[in-house]
């Protein structure tokens, strides 16, 4: 029995941004158990005030380097909603294809580079290079394919430049799309090889469950495992979906009593977002390969082991590649044409919502008659997960308190990583008291 334990992980490594874990156990009693975020605030919502609706995407894309396409899409959708702009069916599909590229890039980065070293008991992917050369090279290749795919659709791997209110500045040629489709078809065996490697060490994924509310997008018309369209749902909402304009009713940002932290809650005192949330709300809509990957890992709808979020991301990689191959067929069948896009300033307010790789993301802007931004509100997925991480800590630590300090520390770090947090995204900073 451990009477005393003092864990202070100052800046969890292999996550995007800065987060700390603090555990103090005195005579077997947990005195302090906190997930803290000391990231330098950057004040995006204040900085966009006075800027033109045309420049919003360029600024807010910089909230996050890993999910910049997602922030760009959410903000562009919000601007379009505020200005009443319609996007053509073709450009809508091309944007979805662009969005998938980022999901694959981010998921392979997280599964391969950030999470996998834990499964192998290594401090980073670097020592894995000589030990599992083929596996690392396959991950690197999949990551490169996803990035080249982003380059083609977004103009850049990070911080896209083709997205403008109303459409796209430049679209790929049919030849380029055909090449991309072939690349994706050729990537399927690589994904299978990656899944086999992860499966071989899946026994190292901790067994832990906590009944959780999962929030994600849900699209019914047509029914789609969606990352881009639809309304907001949760497993507590009896299958109903709220229009995205109602996102404030979902996030309900609140101040937490013991730490005065701004967290989010909907039906319970916390909720989780991300790949596992999407899976739990939409699993039956996965593609054939996505379902097969879920079966391979025994991942079933209703899973409430947060560590399985990494597996859900891997499942989504299969789904994304398969549906993208089909989406390119749809685009090529109709033929591509560069559409002229125009827009003009107008007063109004609009919301935009998409799924970031790490969970649902909300952007909201108000513009004056000159198209200048007067107010902005952004609610990012990692902030929506902070309360869930804390609640997981509170259930997990008593269950493993008799394990060694190193084991407890590793399991807590792995738990944080499994949420794939993107802390520099945290535009609403947590209010945490730091005790060292």
């Amino acid at each position: 029995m451990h009477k005393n334990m003092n864990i202070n992980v100052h800046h969890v490594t292999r996550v995007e941004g800065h987060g700390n874990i603090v555990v103090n156990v005195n005579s077997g009693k947990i005195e302090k158990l906190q997930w803290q975020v000391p990231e330098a605030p950057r004040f995006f919502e204040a900085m966009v005030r006075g800027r033109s609706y045309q420049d919003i995407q360029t600024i807010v894309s910089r909230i996050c380097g890993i999910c910049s396409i997602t922030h760009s899409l959410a903000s562009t959708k919000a601007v379009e909603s505020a200005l009443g702009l319609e996007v053509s069916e073709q450009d809508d599909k091309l944007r979805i294809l662009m969005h998938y590229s980022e999901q694959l890039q981010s998921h392979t980065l997280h599964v391969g580079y950030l999470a996998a070293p834990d499964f192998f008991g290594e401090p980073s992917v670097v020592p894995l290079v000589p030990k599992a050369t083929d596996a690392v090279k396959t991950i690197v290749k999949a990551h490169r394919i996803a990035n080249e795919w982003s380059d083609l659709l977004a103009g850049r791997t990070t911080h896209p430049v083709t997205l403008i209110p109303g459409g796209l500045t430049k679209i790929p040629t049919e030849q380029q799309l055909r090449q991309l489709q072939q690349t994706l078809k050729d990537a399927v065996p690589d994904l299978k090889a990656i899944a086999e490697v992860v499966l071989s060490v899946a026994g190292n994924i901790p067994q832990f469950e906590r009944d959780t509310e999962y929030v994600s997008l849900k699209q019914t018309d047509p029914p789609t495992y969606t990352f881009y369209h639809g309304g907001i749902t949760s497993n507590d909402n009896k299958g109903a979906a709220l229009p995205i304009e109602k996102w404030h009713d979902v996030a309900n940002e609140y101040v937490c009593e013991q730490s005065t932290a701004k967290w989010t809650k909907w039906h319970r005192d916390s909720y989780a977002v991300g790949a596992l949330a999407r899976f739990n709300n939409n699993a039956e809509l996965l593609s054939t390969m996505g379902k097969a990957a879920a079966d391979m890992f025994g991942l079933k709808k209703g899973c409430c082991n947060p560590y399985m979020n990494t597996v859900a991301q891997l499942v989504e990689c299969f789904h994304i590649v398969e549906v993208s191959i089909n989406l390119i067929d749809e685009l090529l069948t109709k033929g591509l044409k560069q559409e002229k896009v125009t827009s003009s300033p107008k007063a109004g307010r609009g919301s935009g919502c998409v799924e970031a790789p790490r969970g649902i993301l909300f952007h909201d802007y108000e513009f004056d008659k000159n198209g200048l931004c007067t107010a902005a509100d952004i609610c990012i997925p990692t902030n929506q997960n902070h309360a869930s991480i804390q609640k997981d800590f509170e259930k997990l630590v008593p269950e493993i308190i008799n394990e060694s300090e190193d084991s407890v520390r590793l399991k807590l770090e792995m738990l944080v990583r499994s949420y794939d947090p993107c802390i520099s995204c945290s535009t609403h900073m947590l209010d945490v008291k730091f005790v060292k």
Partner: protein
Amino acid sequence: MSKPRIAIFDFACCEGCQLQIVNLEEELLDLIDAVDVVEWREAMSEQSHEYDIAIIEGSITRPEDEKRIEVIRSRAKILIALGACATIGGVNKLKNNFDLADVKKCVYGKSADMPHLDTALTKALDEVVKVDYKIHGCPIDRKEFTYIVRSLLMGKTPDIPLYPVCVECKAKGNPCLWDEGQVCLGPIIRAGCGARCPSFGFRCFGCRGYVDNPNVNAAKDIIEKYGLTTDVLKSKMLLFGSMQEPTNA
């Protein structure tokens, strides 16, 4: 000769420039072979206080961060600023156009006065410590990153373009975006990106900072030719150019 020890750190930023290092993909595996990466929080669990080269992403936005960068500077033989937040302050400097108390209140409301939410004017790295090399861009261009790192490893000084983006854009044969009604900063921004954004039909918004001695008169001529006001140009220049210091590499 022992391998140079490299450490990568970040301050206020989106970590997108570090991601470009990861995005070197297969090439990164070769690079890791040639150097000894001793600390890189985003990708590794190891930490070290001994390094030859410090690569820094992000802007300095808090007094405690000034102290941290000074310590890093004192330990490093060479300090490289990575990306716009570090080289020119980037979008983080938009904050400097407002009253800071108002900025905090806008984002944090009633909690704005809590001490850990304190913020100061955004600074580029060279406003706090000596910077030896700058890798420009938001995000950086990964080819330029390897070029600069390779040059340093070979003991050479890297060549950074002294001409504006327009030169690279014209060489690519792109139609001028001004003719399409876009306010493009190509005439005054440092080249080296291969005019990537204009090549995709999107105006240059200045992420690499102003070129040395920008041709201000030519910029005025363009504004007049297209019947625009300098306010429109200034509004675009604010995005990455708010209170920008000279960017000489």
